[in-house]
């Protein structure tokens, strides 16, 4: 009998000991987080210092060296107008990371505010918000973004606003369910009894308690934003040429794949894949740490 009791007791002390570590220390113990964060950091460095790192000018055309296979001079080869694919991949990190970050930030801020209102105020706000969420959910993200970008014309700002607005109801839905849980807590009852205003309760009392949920939503949505932006650029409705961009470069060069010129599309494709996988590793680690 004592043995049976001993095992859970040991687990409790371990869990307690871990609980005292700050969350970022727990994150650094996870290999998946280290790998994901390292890849993400690499692309952030490329986005910021890309022009300094790239061995060639990503826009310089060498019409005597078009369609060259990867070699010592051009590690990833050259494209159909002789631009260095390696340099374009390095510099191309900038457009997608900047647009995805600001689109997700817009969606997270607006979605959190809407979710707090829907969850805390309830009633008509919740009802109307809920219907809008359903209508937006009835269309895949890429299709909605595509529809609006086609309608108003493509620019980085348009893409940020469209994706941010599509994310708003989706993030609001998640925040709303977290707020509904918080509503049952005693601290809200006491805040109400103290006569605090609704705005104060929502943003000062409830918001800090749903922040972990908001953080996870932000990282999850960042992955989706990159997915959508890369897809839009691939279709020709995202980042416009000649700006180096992974999706746009794939869209411009996939037509010559059957001719055997695989390097112009494969390397940007691998760059996109590595970026979204890195974000997923980071997201997964954060979720695991917050859940434990």
């Amino acid at each position, binding site marked *: 009998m004592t043995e049976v009791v001993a095992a859970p007791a040991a687990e409790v002390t371990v869990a307690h000991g871990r609980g005292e570590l700050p969350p970022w220390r727990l994150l650094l113990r996870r290999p*998946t987080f280290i790998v994901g964060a390292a890849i993400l950091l690499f692309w952030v460095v490329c986005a910021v210092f890309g022009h300094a790192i790239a061995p060639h000018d990503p826009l310089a055309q060498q019409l005597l060296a078009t369609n060259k296979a990867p070699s010592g001079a051009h590690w990833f080869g050259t494209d159909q107008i002789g631009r260095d694919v390696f340099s374009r991949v390095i510099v191309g990190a900038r457009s997608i990371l900047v647009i995805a970050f600001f689109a997700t930030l817009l969606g997270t801020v607006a979605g959190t505010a809407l979710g707090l209102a829907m969850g805390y105020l309830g009633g008509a706000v919740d009802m109307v918000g809920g*219907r*809008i969420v*359903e*209508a*937006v959910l*009835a*269309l*895949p*993200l*890429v*299709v*909605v973004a*595509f*529809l*609006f970008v*086609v*309608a*108003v014309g493509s620019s980085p700002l348009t893409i940020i606003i469209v994706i941010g607005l599509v994310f708003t109801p989706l993030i609001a839905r998640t925040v709303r369910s977290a707020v509904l849980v918080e509503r049952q807590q005693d601290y809200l009852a006491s805040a109400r009894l103290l006569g605090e205003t609704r705005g104060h309760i929502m943003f000062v009392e409830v918001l800090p308690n749903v922040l972990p949920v908001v953080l996870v939503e932000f990282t999850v949505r960042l*992955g*989706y934003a*990159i*997915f959508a932006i*890369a*897809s839009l650029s*691939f*279709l*020709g*409705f995202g980042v416009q040429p000649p700006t180096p961009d992974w*999706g746009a470069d*794939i869209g411009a060069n*996939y037509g010559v*794949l*059957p001719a*055997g010129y*695989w390097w112009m*599309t*494969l390397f940007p*494709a*691998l760059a*996109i*894949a590595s970026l*979204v*996988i890195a*974000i*997923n*590793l980071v*997201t*997964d680690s954060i979720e695991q740490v917050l859940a434990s």
Partner: protein
Amino acid sequence: MATYILKRLGLALITLWLLSLIVFFATQVLPGDPGRAILGNLASPSAVRALDHQLGVDRPLIEQYWTWVTGLLHGDMGTSTQFRAPVEPYIQAALVNSLKLAALAFVIVVPLGIVGGVVAALNYGRAPDRIISVAGLSATTVPEFVSGIVVIVVFGVALKVLPVSASAGAGASAASQFQHLILPAIPLVLVLFGYIARMARAGTIEALNSDYTRTATLKGLKRSVVIRRHVLRNSLLPTITVIATQTGYLIGGLVIVETLFNYQGIGNLIYKAATAKDFPMLAAGVLTIGVVYMVATLAADLLYTVLNPRLRLGGAE
């Protein structure tokens, strides 16, 4: 249960109406002057005005919306500006093609996703679970054209075992059509695998931790029997819902895959409509995708109600 179904249908109608507003707003209000967009910057103002009048876009917005919606209800989706012909035959043909591709992807991914999720759950927290979960999540967020490029390079260009284009050509045999659809189906399978596996995993873990599973184990049933009779039956219920709701996303993902593989489906149709600024076609295509998705979600909800004895036998609300 009848009231639940009626309520669910009512909500679906409201969502459908909101969807029509979104599509109308995006395709007929936001683009500004459709006549100018179609004719270009060099056309004379009078020609633009004439075309605007012919398209009916110089009338008040509410009137335009009313005409459009009543037309839709009578099966009139408008006139394509690029083909100068009714939109419906194009939508219909494209939808049939898309459903063929989607069906193939589904037949592959459903068993694969369920097996993956159940295997992950049975190895909860150990290496197979981590690998399946992270790989599934990654496959889900890698855009279809990225995985599409990789399979084209590997199977179409390097190994030369499968055709790179999805269209088998007119009058091709069913076997040839099938062969041409294998490569385009792979990116769709990858995107859906993560969702289905994650749901199957969550459902299985919940069932494994339940009291009835513990009872079944404690009364001495073999683990394989417990899993087959008690765990799987309960765990696959939420998975069915996810599979049905993924149909819509699948059709949305087709925009990319069909463009990449040049396949004449609904996704390729709205892509071409967008590049040609053919807004009636674009509106009809996007609305069709929305409706297909809503019908799938509704079917999933109803199926869930029918399959779940707790809901079926009265306690619906």
